C-alpha cells in the first residue's frame, strides 16, 4: 500500500469498515427489477477467451436479461468489446481467437461448432462503432439483410424497409430519397441507418459497440432515445466507455477490468452503491 500522502485522501482515511456511500450522479436512472426475477436471454458461464496466447477474458459468469438494456463499461483494453463480439461470433474472423466455456442464447449453445453462424448473426444483430453503410442506396442498405435471408414480394420488402426505418426513427427524414446513396447522410443518420439495417432481419438481440462515440451530442441523444424505445422489442447490449451514457441509457451494467467481470448489477446500484472498490474507483474517475 502506498504511504500516507497528505495531498490525497484515500478511503482508508475514513476508517469506516464499509465503503462510504458515493454521491449519486445527477443523472436520472431507471428503476429496474431484481435480476433474478427476469427472463434471461444470454447466459455465460466460465467463459474464457484468448487471442493466440494472450488470455483476454477470465472466467466470466453473466446473465443478460431479455428486453432490457445491459451496458458493459470499463477502461480501455478491459475486454468489453471482445466479449460483445463473442456473442455473435464475430471474433471467428480474427485468426488466433478462441474461447472456452458456455455461451447460451435462449438455451442454444452458441459455441457449438455445428451451430450455424449465419443464422446466429441473423438472430443477434450488431451495430458498429463507426457507421459503415454500404456504398449503395438507402433502400438497398436496409433491404440487404432481408434479401439474403428471405424470399418475399417487392411490396412486402418495401413494407419491411419502411418499418425498419420507422423503428430506427429515420423514416421521416429519408422517405423521399430512398434511392439516394447512403453515404450522403450525416453521421447520426448513417448510424441510425445501420440500426435499421440490423433490425430489418428481425433479430432477438442487438449488440452495439460504442454506437455513439463517433457522433455529435445531438445525434447521440437521438440514438440513446432510440435505444430506450427499442428495448421493448429487443434485448440490447451496449459497450460504452462513456459512463454517463451507461447511467442514462442502461438498465443493468457490468463493469469489467483487465479481462475480469468485476461487478454486475442494476445500473442504479452500480452508480450509487458499488460493492467493489475497483468499481468505485473507476466510477469516481480515479483511473480509466
Amino acid at each position: 500500500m502506498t504511504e500516507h500522502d497528505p495531498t490525497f485522501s484515500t478511503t482508508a482515511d475514513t476508517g469506516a469498515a464499509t465503503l462510504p456511500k458515493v454521491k449519486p450522479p445527477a443523472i436520472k436512472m431507471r428503476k429496474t427489477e431484481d435480476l433474478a426475477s427476469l427472463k434471461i436471454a444470454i447466459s455465460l458461464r466460465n467463459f474464457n477467451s484468448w487471442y493466440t496466447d494472450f488470455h483476454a477474458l477470465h472466467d466470466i459468469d453473466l446473465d443478460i436479461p431479455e428486453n432490457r438494456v445491459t451496458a458493459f463499461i470499463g477502461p480501455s483494453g478491459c475486454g468489453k468489446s471482445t466479449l460483445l463480439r463473442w456473442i455473435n461470433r464475430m471474433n471467428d474472423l480474427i485468426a488466433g481467437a478462441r474461447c472456452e466455456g458456455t455461451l447460451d442464447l435462449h438455451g442454444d449453445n452458441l459455441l457449438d461448432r455445428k451451430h450455424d453462424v449465419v443464422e446466429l448473426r441473423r438472430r443477434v444483430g450488431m451495430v458498429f462503432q463507426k457507421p459503415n453503410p454500404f456504398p449503395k442506396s438507402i433502400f438497398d442498405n436496409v433491404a440487404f439483410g432481408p434479401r439474403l435471408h428471405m424470399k418475399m414480394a417487392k411490396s412486402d420488402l418495401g413494407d419491411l424497409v419502411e418499418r425498419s426505418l420507422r423503428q430506427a426513427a429515420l423514416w421521416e427524414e429519408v422517405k423521399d430519397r430512398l434511392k439516394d446513396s447512403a453515404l450522403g447522410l450525416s453521421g447520426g443518420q448513417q448510424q441510425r441507418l445501420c440500426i435499421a439495417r440490423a433490425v430489418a432481419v428481425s433479430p432477438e438481440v442487438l449488440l452495439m459497440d460504442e454506437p455513439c462515440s463517433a457522433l455529435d451530442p445531438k445525434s447521440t441523444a437521438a440514438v440513446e432515445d432510440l435505444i430506450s424505445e427499442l428495448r421493448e422489442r429487443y434485448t440490447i447490449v451496449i459497450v460504452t466507455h462513456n459512463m454517463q451514457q451507461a447511467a442514462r441509457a442502461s438498465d443493468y451494467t457490468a463493469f469489467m477490468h483487465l479481462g475480469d467481470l468485476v461487478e454486475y448489477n442494476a445500473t442504479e446500484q452500480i452508480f450509487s452503491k458499488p460493492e467493489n472498490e475497483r468499481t468505485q474507483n473507476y466510477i469516481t474517475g480515479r483511473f480509466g
Partner: protein
Amino acid sequence: MSQASAIPSPRDPAPPIAANVRYKSRSQRKMIDMGFVAVCVTSASLSIIILLYLLASIARQALGVNFETNSFKNVLFSSAFSLTLISLIVLMIAGFGLLFGKRSRSRLITVAVAATLLVLGLLATVSIVKGESTYIYLTKTFLTEPHSYKPRNAGMYPAIIGSVFVCAVCAATAIPIGVGTAILLEEFKPKNNKLRRVQSFVQLNITNLAGVPSIVYGTLGLTAFVYMFGLFGTVNEPLLEIGSSKSGFYFRLPFGRGVLAAGLTLMLVVQPIIIVASQEALRAVPDSLRQGALALGATRWQTVWNITLPASIPGIMTGSILAMSRAIGEAAPILVVSAIGYIALPPQNLMGKFTVMPLQIFNWASEAKHEYHNVAAAGIVVLLAELLTFNAVAVFVRQKFTKQLS
C-alpha cells in the same frame, strides 16, 4: 417518433411480415459458399497443373526427349518432372526452415518425405531421359557456341553477350532518367494550381506509356535511333563516323542497327516500370523523416539527397532489377530494331550487329526444321534461369537492405 404498426414479437416462428414470405434455405446458401471454394480450388489446381506441364515440356524438349503429343509417356515424364520440381522446392523451403529456424518434428518429417520424393522423381526422370533422349541439347557448349546449321551444334553465346550489352545500355540510361522523373513527381510537388495540373498530366502520360505495346516502341526506336529521322544520312552512308567498325570503339551517326539503338529503345519500354516502382519506393518513406529534415533548415533537394533517397534505395533497386529482368525478356522491340537473322559473333562495339536471347529463341522456334525446337527449349531454360536469378537477387536485396524507417 416511431409509429410502429403491429410488429410481431421477434421470437414468433411465423414469417415476419406476411404469409407469403419464406425463409431461404440456409443449407442452400452454405452449399453455394462451399461450391465457390470448390471452384476456386479446382481452377487453382488446374492452373498449377498447366504451369507444371509447361515447365515439364520445356525441360523435356531441352533434354532431347520428343514424345508424341498425347502418349502416355508424355504424361509419365511430366509427372516425374513435376514431382522432382515440387519436392525440390519443398525440400529447400523446409530445409532452410530447419537450418535457420526452429527444429520441429513436422519439419523433419517434411524434409525426409521431400528428400525421398525428390530422389524418386530424379530417378524416374533420369531413366526416362536416358531411355528416350536422342541428344541432350542443354550442354556446356550450348553456352559457348554460336548458332550453326546443325541444330546439335547450335549455341547461344552471341545472344548472351548481346543481351548483356543491350541491357547495360538500357540500365545506364533508363535508371537515372526514371528515378529522376520519380523524384520530380513525388518530392517536388508544385503548389501552384497550373503547375499541379501539369504534374498530373505528366503522371497520366506515364500511365499511358505503360500501356503502349512494346512493338510500337520498336517502331519508334527504328525511326528515332536507327534512322534518326534521316537527319544524319542513311544507315549505309553515315554522316559521322569515328573509329572503325571492327574495333572496340566506334561511333556513328545515325546509330544504325546496333547495340546502342536497341538499348535506347529498350530504355523507352522499361521507363514507365522504373518510374512507377521508384515512385512507390519514395512514397513508402514516412513523411515524418522529411518534415524533420526540413525543420532543420534543409532545402528540398538536400532532404531528398540525404534523407529520402537513401531510405528508398532498396525499393528503387528492387524495382530496377525487376524492370531489367523484364527488359532481358523483351524480343519485339529488338526485332524491329535489329531485324537480322542469325549472328555468328558477339557485338564488337556499341554500333555492331547483335542479337539477344529471346530473339534467338524466337528465330529457332520459327525454323521449319523441328529439331530446332529442342534448341529453342534449351534456350528457354537459360532464359528462365536468368529470370529466376534476377528475382532472387531482387528479393535478397529487399530483405537485406530494407531497414525499419520509423
